[in-house]
């Protein structure tokens, strides 16, 4: 399957269509496991389009909690930093877990193609954003008129080696439903799964949520 060079503007436009149009609060349950540990808990993500996200999580039985604010592909702050980094090693994969895509980086080569599926009326989209060291591949199957949800698959490779791969199901409104991210490079393999329990667009976000104390 050969990808052809594609317009950066088209890629940016497509990425933009995956984002919510209004502020959204997403509540979810999560589960993380690698060969040493298994954790589960709950979390919320508050998204202020087009590029800002606050991620809050609570550990098992309410033990331990943390948060982070992300702007585009950068972590503005994370507290505790170490816990967040182990839970979310790659920011683009966090966006992808919620069915959203960040626009390609300025130095990324953009390639893409459309796949026509004989079983579904929708066309699937393939995009590759290739930077010198990092490559992000996306395969989007949009929700269709037959009331079937869609899927966003993402793969992150660093220097040719796969670091993470995600599968994110979205519902018929393109809201995130479930996601799984695999990290094959973690010893024994690690997996992060989430299930969305609520998607709320009526929330008003307090300005304080974006600030860091430290």
């Amino acid at each position, binding site marked *: 399957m050969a990808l052809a060079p594609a317009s950066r503007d088209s890629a940016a436009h497509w990425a933009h269509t995956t984002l919510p149009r209004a502020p959204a609060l997403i509540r979810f349950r999560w589960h993380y496991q690698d060969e040493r540990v298994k954790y589960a*808990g709950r979390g919320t993500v508050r998204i202020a389009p087009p590029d800002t996200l606050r991620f809050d999580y609570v550990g098992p039985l309410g033990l331990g909690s*943390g*948060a982070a604010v992300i702007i585009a592909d950068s972590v503005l702050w994370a507290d505790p930093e170490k816990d967040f980094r182990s839970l979310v090693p790659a920011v683009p994969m966090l966006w992808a877990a919620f069915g959203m895509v960040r626009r390609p980086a300025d130095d990324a080569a953009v390639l893409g193609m459309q796949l026509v599926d004989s079983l579904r009326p929708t066309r699937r989209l393939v995009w590759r954003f290739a930077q010198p060291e990092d490559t992000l591949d996306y395969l989007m199957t949009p929700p269709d008129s037959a009331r079937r949800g869609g899927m966003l698959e993402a793969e992150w490779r660093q220097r040719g080696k796969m670091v993470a791969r995600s599968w994110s199901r979205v519902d018929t409104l393109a809201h995130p439903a479930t996601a799984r991210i695999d990290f094959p490079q973690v010893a024994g393999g690690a997996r992060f799964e989430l299930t969305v329990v609520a998607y709320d667009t009526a929330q008003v976000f*307090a300005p304080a949520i974006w600030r860091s*104390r430290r």
Partner: protein
Amino acid sequence: MCLGGCPYGFQGGTLPNVKTVAIMPFDNDTPEPRLTAEVSDAVRQALEGRLGLRVATEATADAIVRGRVVRYDPDVPQSVLAGVGQATVTKRKVQIIVDVEIVNQREGTSVWKRQGLSVDGDYDPPNEQDGRKAALAKLVQQIVDGAQSQW
């Protein structure tokens, strides 16, 4: 004297028709992420340790507790020592404001709700954690008092 007739007092009872509760993580509108767990823990202490309710899963609980940590002020000056050309704050307090609601899942009714519940705790700088502990202890007490007043 009032053992038989007092409407209040420690009875180890529960909220009407509520024996089990699920505590949802509170939304956190503050820049202090640890409060999510600490406030949930305080709520758990109030409901399980003081009101005798059992914590259960969301799917099976009679009621769910949900809420929001609305505001956290970590360093409100309480006592100031005046000096030449400068003043030293010798005591500060933390202030936490939360919204709490207990919803009876079976009946779909709100059992108890309090918005803007404000608690504070003094501390000697820089021991903010002491102030937070004191404030959270007050939160436990306020939830117990508030819930008992509904019986």
